[in-house]
Structures are given as structure tokens and as C-alpha cells.
């Protein structure tokens, strides 16, 4: 599993798309933190509203992740499973190790990529602000973990990489909109999006992040079950 994790991580980090995304996230984190440092009155004003200084500094990064997270994760990991089944390299992997190990390795490799990316951004923010907002950091990582699990699930049930690329773009745009709208508008057809997508839970107290974490794990376990039964 560890070798698949390493391969997944290095393949992710070496891709042009990933490099662009890392640069974008890091740049936004740096610039937004620098802007706030140069405008301390903004922090004191927001402080009067009850918002902590750490939250203000990481707000830029959180906003980017919550808006573009689906798009970014799908851009890198939409073919995390089906590229191997399409190219038949999965056959080679399953002759050497178990299918759940392959799936765990891939999930953890993709997760590690995002942990590193977000940690670098948080490190930059903390260098400027001297604050590491641990709660927001975990919230962001759980949000991304949920999306990675969804990407793994979609990549497992959809065999064609071209189709998952298309779906990734579509869902990457649609899901944040649906998730946000479902929190504001109380319509029956938006209820599933409210409770299945992570946005609603992230707006609640910290304990609620366990729910998207659990939903993500369910997506992943379903992917493992499907993969276990499949002819490769």
C-alpha cells in the first residue's frame, strides 16, 4: 500500500495541473495574509464582529478551497482509479497486492498531496500572521478528504477517463453552487444536497465536520466494495 501511496503522491505532485493549483493556492494564501497584515484595521473591525484573527488570516485560503476545492480535486484525481483500469495497469497491481490495498494506497496518496499543499499554504499564512488556525486547517482538510473520496467513488463507477474529466468539471462547478444554495433556500429538491454535501456541516460547530468525514468514508468503502467484485 505504501508504494502505491508514494506513486500516487509523486504522480500527483509532478503533474502540471497540480503545480498550477499549488502555485495558485499558495499565491492567494500569501497575498491575502500579506494584505491583512498591511491593513490591521480590517482585523480589528472583524474582531469586533467576534471573528478571531486566525480565522481572518486563513479566510482567503478557506474561501478558495470551498469555492474551487471540488474543481481542483477533480482536476487532479478524476481518473485516480479508472485510468488504471482503462490502461489495464490495474491488472498488474492486483497480481501483486490486494484490491483494497490498491484503493487505500490511492486514497492516501491523493490525501497526502492535499495535506502537503494545504500545510504549505498554512505555513506561509502562519509565518506572516504568527497564528496557526488548527480548527480551520482540519476543517479544510476534511472538506478536501470528502471530495477526494467522492472522486475515488466516481472514478470507480465510471470506467472512462474522458467521461470522469467531463463529470469532474461539471460537478466541480455545480456542487459548490448547489451546496451553498441548499444552505440558504429551503426547497425539498435541495435537501439532499444540503445533507450529502459538506458545506452545511462546515458552517456548523466544529463537531459537525465528522459527518462529511463519515460520508467521505462511506463513498470510499462503496468504491472498495465495487472494486472487489469487478472484473479488471
Amino acid at each position, binding site marked *: 500500500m505504501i*508504494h502505491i501511496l508514494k506513486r500516487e503522491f509523486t504522480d500527483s505532485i509532478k503533474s502540471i495541473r497540480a503545480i498550477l493549483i499549488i502555485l495558485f493556492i499558495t499565491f492567494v494564501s500569501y497575498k491575502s495574509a500579506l494584505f491583512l497584515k498591511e491593513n490591521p484595521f480590517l482585523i480589528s473591525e472583524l474582531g469586533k464582529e467576534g471573528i478571531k484573527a486566525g480565522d481572518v488570516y486563513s479566510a482567503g485560503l478557506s474561501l478558495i478551497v470551498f469555492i474551487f476545492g471540488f474543481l481542483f480535486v477533480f482536476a487532479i484525481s478524476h481518473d485516480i482509479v479508472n485510468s488504471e483500469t482503462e490502461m*489495464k495497469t490495474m491488472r498488474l497491481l*492486483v497480481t501483486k497486492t*490486494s484490491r483494497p490495498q490498491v484503493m487505500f494506497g490511492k486514497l492516501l496518496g491523493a490525501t497526502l498531496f492535499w495535506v502537503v499543499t494545504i500545510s504549505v499554504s498554512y505555513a506561509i499564512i502562519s509565518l506572516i500572521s504568527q497564528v496557526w488556525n488548527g480548527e480551520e486547517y482540519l476543517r479544510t482538510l476534511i472538506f478536501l478528504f470528502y471530495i477526494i473520496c467522492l472522486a475515488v467513488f466516481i472514478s470507480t463507477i465510471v470506467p472512462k477517463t474522458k467521461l470522469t474529466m467531463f463529470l469532474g468539471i461539471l460537478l466541480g462547478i455545480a456542487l459548490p453552487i448547489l451546496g451553498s444554495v441548499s444552505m440558504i433556500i429551503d426547497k425539498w429538491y435541495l435537501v439532499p444536497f444540503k445533507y450529502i454535501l459538506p458545506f452545511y456541516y462546515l458552517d456548523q460547530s466544529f463537531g459537525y465536520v465528522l459527518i462529511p468525514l463519515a460520508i467521505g468514508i462511506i463513498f470510499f468503502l462503496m468504491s472498495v466494495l465495487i472494486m472487489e*467484485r469487478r*472484473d479488471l
Partner: protein
Amino acid sequence: MKAIEVENLIKRYGSANVLNGINLTVEKGEVFGFVGHNGAGKSTFIHTLTGITRKSSGSFSILGTPGGELDRVKKKIGVMPDIANLYQHMRGIDFLRYMGNLAGDMRTKRSYEELLEEVGLKGAGGKKIKSYSFGMKKKISIAQALLGDPELIILDEPTSGLDPESAIVVRKMVTRLQEEGKTIFLTSHNLDEIEKVSDRVGILTDGVIKKLGTPRELKAQAEGGVQLAVRTKPVLTAEVVNELKEKSGLNLAFVETKREFTLLQLPSDDELPRLTRALLDGGVDLYEVKVEERSLEDVFMNA
């Protein structure tokens, strides 16, 4: 403990049975050759045994471990499924290292280079696999199957598409691996090759093993008895052979005339002295008799 034990294995795709109740035992240390027409089910059989596809029904065990617990013995099995399964963007050496790590084979870089050299890919480790020729891809695919010092090595058409020299290298490797105590299960379209390296051969037709045995046993089972090439004066014609048959009571059949030789068929080589006498009694001078051995090809064509 057997290397492979298969009982009534069925693999169904939709309503079609690709494997239609296979029963087979492969002993440890044996080289087992599996032959069959295209689409007979050879690759499906390998895929089912190695966990690439799931069986529909029946049972099998590998190195004494039931098919359902195959993950426990995967490190003891080396599989060469198909060259289409390679990571094209990787360098040869990186590919082998990745596969080696998965197989629990923590050898040195030098050792990977030696393995490449062993399969005839000396100096190719630094090149990307997508730049490899068909034969080179085949060789690296064989190399990855040898990683982790497996007890059982399953090779799906290891020599198809290889030049004769490379095919000989692979054949010698199979022999060497057997000498080291490995069990080899291989498929091939090259019946001559299967005959040369295999202790036993199974002929698969329409998802069922139609013939099973040592090459010698299979050839002995071949229909049509013994074929003889006789050089006589005068050269035998169909009419003369029919006359001899009537006079001697031999179950003799004329096949064809090839220059000064006449091909005849007898139920067995036990009848050879009677044929010799009949020829001499019939005023035919006999100069040469060659017993044409049945090939595995004849067995295969009759399966």
C-alpha cells in the same frame, strides 16, 4: 500441496461461458503448458486464477491457499498477464522497482539491472517503456513476473512476437527456473515450444480441457496411428498399396507420395514387421523406412 488445483471452474460473461467447467491439477516444480485457439479461454483462465477476474462458480487453490484468500499468497506468485498492462510513461528500471516494491522485492539498483540483462534488456532500463519495441515490452513484462522470487510463475504467451533468439532465451529461462524448483504455468500458440519445455500439456477448447497429459502421452493418443515414409522400388502407388492391403490383411492406408517416398499409415508400429514382409512378398524392394512421429500439432488439431 499442489501448485494449482482447479475444480469445475466456470467463468461466465453474460450468458456465454468462457470457462466451462475446468478441472486441473498442477504439481509443484512442474512446467505446465496450456494451449488453445484464440478465444479458447486461456487468458481468462489465467485472469481468474490470479485475481484479475472473478470466477462465476467452481473452486481453485493456489499453493494450497483457496482462491478466496488469494491475497495471502500473491507475493509467492509471479504473473505476466499481457504487455498492454505496462506503465508506458515509466522508465524500465523505475517500472521494475515499483513492481518489485509491490512484490516485496527490495533488491538493489544493480540487481534490477542484472535482471534486465538476464531477459535481454541490457542498457534499456533508462528508457521509457513507451519507446520500447513489442519484444522489449514482452521481456520487461517477463522480468516483472520474476520479482520477489515467486514459487509459481504464470506466463501468458511469453514468447509470442519475440525473435527466435529471444524466444530461446525465454525457453532457457523457463528450464532454469524449473531447475530452481519453481512451478511454471505458461500458455503459448507455439506448440513446438510448449512441447520442448512442458512436463505436461493441457489443450483448451471452448472453455474445456479436451486433452491433458505429457507431450508423449498426447501424441500417443493422437488418432490415425503411425505414419511411415517408405522408400521403395518401384515407388508405391495407391493401387499397389490397396493390393498389398488385400493380400496381407494389414490395416494399411495410403496417404500420399512425396518424391521417392510414399507416406503410409498403420494402426501402430507393431505392424511394421508384417508390412516389411508384405512388401518383399509383393516384389517391392525396400530401401528405407522412417517412422514419422506425431506432433503436438496433430493432437491439437484433433482436440
